[in-house]
């Protein structure tokens, strides 16, 4: 296993009076796709938001690319090289697709090659380039959200359930884009409920339950071991 690009050490997060993350230990290896799995409500989304800094962790450490970022502001984390695709996509509905993409390139104008690559990967964005993003369909919004996070080269991408409720055609478009992203050397932490996507994309997997990571290992091991799936997630994931 290569060096981790991101590691969480005993991270606790409270939301209001609820203790959601109860000591998360997690390592995301460099240049790999790590799947964050688990049933609904076990803290996957909270984990991503804590990494991004949208929730403050009460205790524990988060380090990214060799630096401690437990106390960093949200914007500083993004500028350090983390791209974020939240569960609700965070599209700016009043802005055009183009304006959303321009904002995605935080440090300056978008690299023309990168823009070309993204427009090839997500042709719909080109079609609606000058339309208001609020008018896009759910799948197009999801693609825009991912493309926006990719608008500049980042070290790590946090992506929260990108395939939720999407048509299979769009899912494969998206999977292809993530594969190309990985080929460019990026690391990805992906929350995913769709097991076939998880199996196809994931290099490693971390399974959460009750606010903790209860299992980590190779995605291939998890994918082939139904007993393990049953034990970790209470159901066989092939059923999905």
């Amino acid at each position, binding site marked *: 296993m290569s060096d981790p690009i991101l590691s969480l050490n005993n991270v606790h997060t409270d939301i209001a009076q609820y203790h959601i993350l109860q000591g998360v230990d997690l390592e995301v290896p460099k240049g790999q796709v790590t799947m964050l799995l688990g049933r609904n409500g076990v803290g996957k989304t909270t984990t991503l938001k804590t990494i*991004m800094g*949208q929730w403050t962790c009460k205790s524990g450490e988060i380090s990214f690319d060799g630096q401690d970022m437990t106390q960093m502001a949200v914007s500083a984390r*993004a500028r350090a090289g983390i791209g974020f695709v939240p569960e609700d996509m*965070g599209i700016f*509905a009043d802005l055009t697709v183009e304006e959303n993409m321009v904002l995605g390139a935080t440090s300056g104008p978008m690299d023309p090659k990168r823009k070309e690559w993204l427009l090839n990967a997500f042709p719909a964005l080109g079609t609606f380039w000058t339309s208001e993003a609020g008018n896009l369909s759910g799948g197009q919004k999801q693609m825009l959200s991912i493309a926006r996070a990719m608008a500049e080269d980042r070290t790590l991408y946090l992506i929260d359930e990108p395939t939720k409720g999407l048509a299979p055609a769009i899912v494969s478009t998206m999977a292809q884009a993530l594969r190309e992203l990985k080929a460019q050397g990026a690391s990805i932490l992906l929350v995913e409920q769709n097991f076939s996507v998880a199996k196809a994309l994931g290099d490693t997997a971390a399974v959460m339950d009750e606010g903790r990571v209860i299992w980590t290992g190779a995605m291939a091991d998890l994918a082939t071991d139904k007993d393990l799936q049953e034990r970790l997630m209470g159901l066989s994931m092939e059923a999905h």
Partner: protein
Amino acid sequence: MTAAPDHRPTFARLSLTERLDASLPLLLVPILVVLGFFAIGAPSSWLTLTVSGLAMGMMIFIMASGLTLVFGLMDVINFGHGAFISVGAFVGVSVLIALGDWTGAASLVLNMSAIFLAVVAAMAVTGALGWGFERVIVKPVYGAHLKQILVTVGGLIVIEQLIHVVWGPDEIFINRPEMLKGAVTFAGAALERYRLLAVAVGLVLFLAMRIVLRRTKIGLIVRAGVENGPMVEALGYRLRVVFVGVFIAGSALAGLGGVMWGLYQEVITANMGERMMVLVFIVAIIGGLGSVEGAFIGALLVGLLQNYVAFLEPKLALVSNIALMTAILMWRPQGMLPVVKAK
């Protein structure tokens, strides 16, 4: 892997009523102007009133734009905004009085230079004051509306009193520069020069603001921040810094509005800003809090309606604005062009 099948859903065609509903706010101003024409009857009076209504609307817009953006970006409601209007007026008028030779001369160049310097001074002082106000008064109470209202009202009281300390307890009368006195006659209607200037300044500012908001990256950040601040931060922008910038710009614009309003009324008092806040709030509410375009339309509506009603039934002028606000809120409870907030 094969390429995904081409996925191109089309936009659902909007029905006529939906499209009308979306563009109706934009049509309200011309509708009101036409209604005013029939209610007033005499074309020359109508033209005079329309120009003064537009002038008034532009000035209110200048004062309201900062307030509405500040609210949209950080959910901060600043009841002390009126203090910047008053301070701007006092600084600007002091400069104009000091440059009495320039304003008294029958030279447009000298007159406009004096106004320009007055405006620059007023905006510099109110911008700086806004920066201090944000640090000292507003920053400690982010996210707490009740405290925000109380503390900013406290700030308003203190700044008004400080105006008295610096400029004394009395109102100050000011003459408009020589070349801006009087009126030009157009199609039988007397159009005051100063009001024409106010309309021009307001239009230029509105267009400039639109260009900044639509064509520059900082404008994109502001618009995106109004809609979904946390996402803007997650993309790596320091929203707080942007917010402070907008607060300063908004305060400076309030100062500009104060100078313009002072010259319009030809008298300034320490509590003029406090009085203007009523109209500023009405404009921000009916426009939709956070929306600059909404504030622009709202300001023009308020200015026009107030002038038309003042001509038709003078006693009802201010009440007409309350009626307008009531009507618009019944129609759209969040204002004419509500800002879509994420969640």
